[in-house]
């Protein structure tokens, strides 16, 4: 270790390299770079200092009437398009292929997740998602196979909705989005921002980038097939599918964001 540092010092101090080191120091001292450095350090400190949004456990649904209408439209889309499509897709693509498309699609969503991890200053998740992306993109043949999960690198799922939560933005009201279904004001904004900031869109040239979008859509159709029992039971067998899907979305989303259940989330039927 000691000799390594000495070697490095000797290397840096060789006359040949000195001009470069000097130039670098000079560059770092120019006013604009200094300003940029200070500004980004302040921005990071501000992010680190802001507290996540306060916990909520109630249902905030002021647009219920409109949301219910959208829910009925989404159910019709499911019945007319998604359900038959997923059946056909299941027949054509079968289990393993549909799994491969799902893996490919979720691998392509990792760069966006890593970006969000960084925006949340969640470096452990950023590193584990980066390791997962590297492993699956290479050994997993462009992400078709998930070799990372068995090696203790499961996906640390995140999105810009969570970033907004970490930054202190409140959940907002419940909203039923067209096609997508249950969401909240905050998560709906997150969806749009995630689409815009997705690094894959900026790295891949135009025709290739659509492969990502296409695989996301195919993956959704595959999910509809794989979870058909559940989707059927929530959408078509429960007495009030709107209230049921709202409850599922809000409770699982809050549990994921808050990390644990608190006394406010827990039922106490004995106290009633």
């Amino acid at each position, binding site marked *: 270790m000691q000799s390594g540092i000495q070697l490095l010092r000797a290397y840096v101090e060789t006359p040949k390299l000195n001009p470069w080191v000097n130039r670098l120091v000079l560059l770092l001292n120019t006013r604009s770079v200094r300003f940029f450095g200070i500004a980004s350090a302040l921005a990071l400190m501000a992010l680190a200092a802001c507290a996540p949004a306060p916990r909520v456990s109630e249902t905030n649904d002021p647009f219920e009437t409109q949301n219910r209408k959208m829910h009925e439209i989404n159910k019709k889309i499911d019945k007319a398009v998604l359900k038959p499509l997923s059946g056909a897709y299941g027949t054509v693509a079968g289990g393993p292929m549909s799994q491969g498309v799902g893996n490919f699609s979720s691998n392509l*969503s990792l760069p966006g997740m890593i970006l969000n991890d960084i925006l949340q200053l969640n470096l452990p998740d950023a590193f584990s998602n980066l390791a997962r992306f590297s492993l699956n993109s290479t050994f997993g043949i462009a992400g078709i196979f998930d070799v990372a999960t068995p090696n203790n690198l499961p996906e640390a799922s995140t999105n810009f909705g969570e970033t907004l939560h970490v930054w202190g933005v409140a959940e907002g009201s419940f909203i039923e989005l067209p096609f997508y279904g249950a969401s909240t004001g905050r998560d709906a904004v997150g969806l749009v921002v995630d689409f815009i900031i997705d690094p894959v869109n900026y790295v891949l040239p135009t025709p290739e980038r659509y492969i990502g979008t296409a695989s996301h859509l195919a993956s959704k159709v595959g999910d509809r097939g794989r979870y058909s029992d559940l989707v059927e039971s929530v959408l078509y067998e429960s*007495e009030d599918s709107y209230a049921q899907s709202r409850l599922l979305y809000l409770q699982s989303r809050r*549990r994921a964001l808050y990390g644990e259940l608190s006394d406010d989330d827990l039922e106490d039927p004995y106290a009633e």
Partner: protein
Amino acid sequence: MPNNKALTRRSALTLAAAAGFVTLLPLKATALTNKQAADLIDNVVADINKIINSGKSESSMYRDFEALFAKYGDVPIIARSSLGVAWRSASASQQQRYVAAFRGYMAQKYGKRFREFIGGKIVVTGARKVSSGYLVGSVAHLKGSAPFSVEWQVSDKSGQVKMFNLYIEGISLLATERTEITAMLDKRRGDLNKLIADLEKMG
């Protein structure tokens, strides 16, 4: 985001499956350590696998699940909570019939889902004191799905230590059933006798 969505679906799928577990946990006061609770859940899973692999007819499997549900869970409090405010205005005999009908409905509804547990396992990760009793954390590893969190609410306020709720990735079984049952009651214009009769038919 597709992953979140998938997780929600998967959790809910398993909520349905695990709900049958709700009350399969014979927890005594001394059982609230990781080791003992884990052993108990292992026993429960073994019991369930025995039923699933018994080769019995579906209707007799449901009866076995109903017996497990009644033995380890505080069924009266779960039933009461699922009815919401309507419980208070019900007569004593209605309450009694409702609890019995609800028990059969639960066994029928969730018994179907138990096949998904074949080859799976649940690992208890810890227990902590909460204002409503104890919350026992666990992770479910089922075939073909990523591990997910199952948290069990346990109390001795009934006089015995019993399970009264569970949360799959945060989704509460009591809240899910309250949403379902109150919607059923609304659809029957608040006619509790009609609801009880229909639940009896379903169970």
